[in-house]
């Protein structure tokens, strides 16, 4: 039984490591969220040792399966590889001063209606039914909140909860 469990763990780790092959020891990675948590151990519920801002460049010091030990100046810790990007993210900033894309990663992001130009496009093309469908779909999608996604990842043992 123990062997089976170990084998499954190894296979999972190898699979995730294959997917994260672009991250290598000594290379760089980039934060892509408003806040990226670094942990004391390569586990999702381990103690938080640092919090990094958006678009920080971090040095990869160690790779352990899907987890990376990274450093940004004097801050160092473990982060799930899926929480970092291989390329620097867009720095386009919105009216609030936050990067446009990163600001949407917060739980408070409101539903975005179809852009006026797209509504106008739908009217010009006689596609108002499609417009109504997309507004309905937008509401369905917004109903799935960031908290729902985190709960789903944890319940399904996905992402950093694997």
């Amino acid at each position, binding site marked *: 039984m123990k062997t089976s469990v170990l084998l499954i763990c190894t296979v999972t780790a190898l*699979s*995730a490591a*294959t*997917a*994260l092959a672009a991250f290598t020891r000594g290379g760089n990675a980039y934060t*892509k*969220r408003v806040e990226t948590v670094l942990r004391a151990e390569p586990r999702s519920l381990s103690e938080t040792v640092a919090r990094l801002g958006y678009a920080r460049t971090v040095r990869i010091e160690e790779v352990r399966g*899907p987890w990376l030990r990274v450093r940004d100046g004097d801050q160092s810790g473990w982060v799930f*590889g*899926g*929480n970092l*990007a*291989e*390329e620097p*993210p*867009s720095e*386009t900033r919105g009216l609030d001063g936050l*990067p*446009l*894309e*990163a*600001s*949407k*990663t917060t739980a408070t*992001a409101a539903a*975005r209606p*179809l*852009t*006026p*130009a*797209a*509504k*106008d*496009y*739908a009217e*010009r*093309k006689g*596609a108002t*039914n*499609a*417009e109504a*469908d*997309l507004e*309905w*779909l*937008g509401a*369905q*999608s917004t*109903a*799935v909140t960031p908290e*729902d*996604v985190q709960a*789903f*990842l944890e319940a*399904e*043992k*996905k*992402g950093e*909860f*694997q």
Partner: protein
Amino acid sequence: MTTTRIATTVLLAAVVLGGTPLHAQFNLGKLRETVDQAKAAAAKAKEAADSAAKIAKGVAGIGVEEEYVIGDSVAVEVVSRHGGVVRDEAIQRRVNLIGKALAYYSSRPGIDWRFGVLASDSVNAFSAPGGFVFITRGLYELVDDNDNDDALAAVLAHEIAHITERHALKIIERGELLSGAGDFAQRSSDLRRTDAELRQFDLSVEEIISTLFEKGFDPQTEYAADLKGRELAVTTGYAPGALRKVLTRLQQRSGDPKAVFSTHPPLAERIRRLPADG
């Protein structure tokens, strides 16, 4: 034409209307409503024209707000051509949970990701810039396994990759379209320029639609989306072999004209190019 100029023109037109009855001419509420409508129309026209103007310049990079304008319009066409969306909250919630879980670990977690099942029995999936991912009911049923979400995740991850890699926007950025319309726009007066740019905007949307529905992305772009999508699905925790299984399942149905991604490269070649370990 600026918002102010358009609003002023409509305001003047409202005041100068000779045949309008006196009580209507001095109906302040109505006048305000007219001005508000004019401002809204001008704002819409300006938004589309600004986006089109940026496209016309051969943009170094289309920003996220322009991407939403283009992507929303492409999404209108996708939904319009596939019988609308399936109005089943449970199905749409499942697709959005899995899709958003994948998107969370993508290189663009912050855009407005929206996932939907189209009411079409064809077997295909589409993406639109800005975060719209669609799967037809035909494909959804084909990948709807009872015991896991791996196959569905593999399909969604492939479409997510098209968006994170900005494949559709690159068609515009490469300047593969609209040179004639661009010249026309530059020569025109302000008012005609707005018309021309709106026309150009429509053509931009139609070019992406043509790629999605008729020409398809070039094979290298599809292979890249296969690899990037597979990588994302595995990072998120879905089975490495899921995309191969989906493609094989589709291949086995190849006698049925609805069975394959008609706008994608041959399935055998896509399968051959996947990593050996899944």
